[in-house]
């Protein structure tokens, strides 16, 4: 270790340069990872928090099912009669509203049956109540945007007036904060035409999907048979994320950026250590001539790489977290400590893998080249 540190100090300029590159790569990976999680949450957190295992869509549409497909009441009740299945209709639609105090908000209205497993309840105020059909429970970000319990919220253009009865935690769909309403209210929002005044009873008894809770051992064949009976296409909750607007595209973009960074990291570190090893071949030959074992040279090359990579990724991680703190309020950025640690661990590992490329060269340095220099 003594020698490794002496060498580090002797070449501190180069190692600092290398360290800063690692810092930047690690920070970039961290930031991209924060945006991946943040954007993902912003698109599907409302779905993720549904305590459902599966979602049944109307058969016939393969993308954007929440917006395109409609299932009717019978489908929901039919699914509910399946053995060991719980089913409840779910409405999802994007809309806009204005509070009595003039705050304008975008919102994703989630229609749920009060008391069903999809009902989020309320952290503050009162939960949805079938007896008070005009109630709305808003999620955290709407509260941040200025919507309060007790406000009235008018759905733009439709003139439907709702009472904010409660609030619940962070929940978003398609980059829009979610508000929960009863299925009846949801049908009014979804099916009322601006200007027309249809009574709820005259509106179609249809919903975006059926949220399902199926036993863990539900087989694919049984699922397919049930789908045929009810005219639906059932996917797991996770697969249903893809039905959220933009989810797949965003993920693809972010993961490809991340993959490139994971490719770049070992190449950068590897290239640096390759140049560094070639540069100090005469010194390695001298160390071998003085009796240093191969293992020792490998050990201290690795120790140096590990130190630079570890210090670099740690600093990069701190930088990414700082960026997260700075921009987290304005943009969807979420970098939990575990994600950060896992990401940085991966960066450090691939970085070290890059050094491994040069280890062979270190191991095969011939001490006799020193005599060549002396001739």
């Amino acid at each position, binding site marked *: 270790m*003594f*020698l490794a540190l*002496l*060498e580090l*100090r*002797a*070449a501190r300029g180069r190692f600092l340069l290398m360290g800063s590159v690692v810092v930047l790569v690690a920070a970039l990976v961290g930031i991209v990872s924060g945006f991946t999680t943040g954007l993902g949450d912003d698109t599907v957190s409302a779905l993720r928090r549904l305590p459902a295992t599966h979602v049944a869509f109307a058969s016939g549409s393969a993308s954007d099912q929440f917006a395109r497909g409609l299932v009717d009441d019978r489908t929901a009740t039919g699914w509910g009669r399946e053995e060991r299945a719980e089913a409840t209709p779910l409405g999802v639609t994007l809309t806009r509203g204005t509070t009595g105090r003039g705050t304008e908000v975008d919102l994703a209205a989630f229609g749920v049956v009060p008391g069903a497993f999809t009902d989020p309840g309320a952290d503050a105020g009162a939960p949805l109540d079938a007896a008070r059909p005009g109630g709305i429970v808003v999620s955290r970000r709407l509260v941040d945007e200025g919507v309060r319990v007790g406000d009235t919220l008018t759905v733009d253009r439709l003139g439907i007036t709702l009472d904010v009865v409660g609030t619940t935690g962070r929940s978003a769909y398609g980059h829009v904060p979610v508000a929960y309403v009863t299925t009846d209210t949801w049908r009014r929002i979804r099916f009322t035409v601006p200007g027309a005044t249809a009574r709820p009873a005259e509106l179609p008894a249809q919903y975006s999907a059926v949220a399902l809770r199926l036993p863990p051992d539900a087989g694919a064949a049984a699922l397919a048979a049930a789908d045929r009976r009810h005219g639906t296409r059932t996917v797991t909750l996770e697969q249903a994320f893809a039905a959220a607007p933009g989810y797949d595209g965003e993920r693809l973009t972010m993961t490809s950026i991340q993959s490139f960074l994971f490719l770049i990291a070992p190449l950068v570190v590897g290239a640096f250590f390759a140049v560094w090893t070639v540069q*100090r071949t*005469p*010194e390695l*030959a*001298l*160390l*071998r*001539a*003085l*009796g*240093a*074992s*191969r293992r*020792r040279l490998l050990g201290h090359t690795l120790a140096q790489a590990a130190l630079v990579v570890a210090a670099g990724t740690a600093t990069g991680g701190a930088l990414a977290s700082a960026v997260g703190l700075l921009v987290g309020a304005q943009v969807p950025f979420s970098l939990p400590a575990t994600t950060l640690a896992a990401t940085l661990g991966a960066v450090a590992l691939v970085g070290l893998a890059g050094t491994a490329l040069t280890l062979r060269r270190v191991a095969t340095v011939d*001490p*006799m080249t*020193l*005599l060549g*220099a*002396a*001739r």
Partner: protein
Amino acid sequence: MSLHLDALTVTLGRGDSRTTALDGFGATFRPGVLTALVGPSGSGKSTLLAVAGALLRPDRGRVLLNGTDLAALGDRERARARRERVGYVFQSGNLLTGLTAEEQLLAAASIAGRRPRALRARARELLTEVGLAHRLAHRPDQLSGGERRRIALARALLLEPELLLVDEPTAAVDRSRAEDLAALLVRTTHRYGSVTVVATHDPVVTEAADATVDMLRPPVSASA
């Protein structure tokens, strides 16, 4: 206690550049004696030092250092012999860049598995002995060629090796410096009782040496 070289044959290079650098060379070197190794350029002096110092394995023959045949050892054991038993001053390229004179010595201690801190005082003593007390914190690029060689000598002496090998210590050094270096080598050899072999062209060194071995007329030779 001695270095006994027995019927050493060394060929270097491959194909057209293949050269027989040593051909059945034999000689015995005694402890506490500085032997000057002389012979024209290309006669195999450096090659002989490399073989004696366990850097190069001969094609044939034995290198008996106090009874162990260094030529018969494996790669790992030869590395161990180099760090524990041999002090080697190369003709050039002796020092590690960026390290101070003192650190050059401590690095060697660390390679040999010794605690650098425990040898710091000794390192300073040796550097003083080679006349570099005022250069402890200088790095190679801040030192003259002769000073660099004296540091290498101090480093070779740090662990009191049984065998001290020095290649052309006075090349490109003025006469008075050469005399100082030769005297230093003789003095340390006598003091530490090492088997010392110095490859040289320089009459200053040959005159100071206790014995001389001529590459062209080795004392014990077995023709291959």
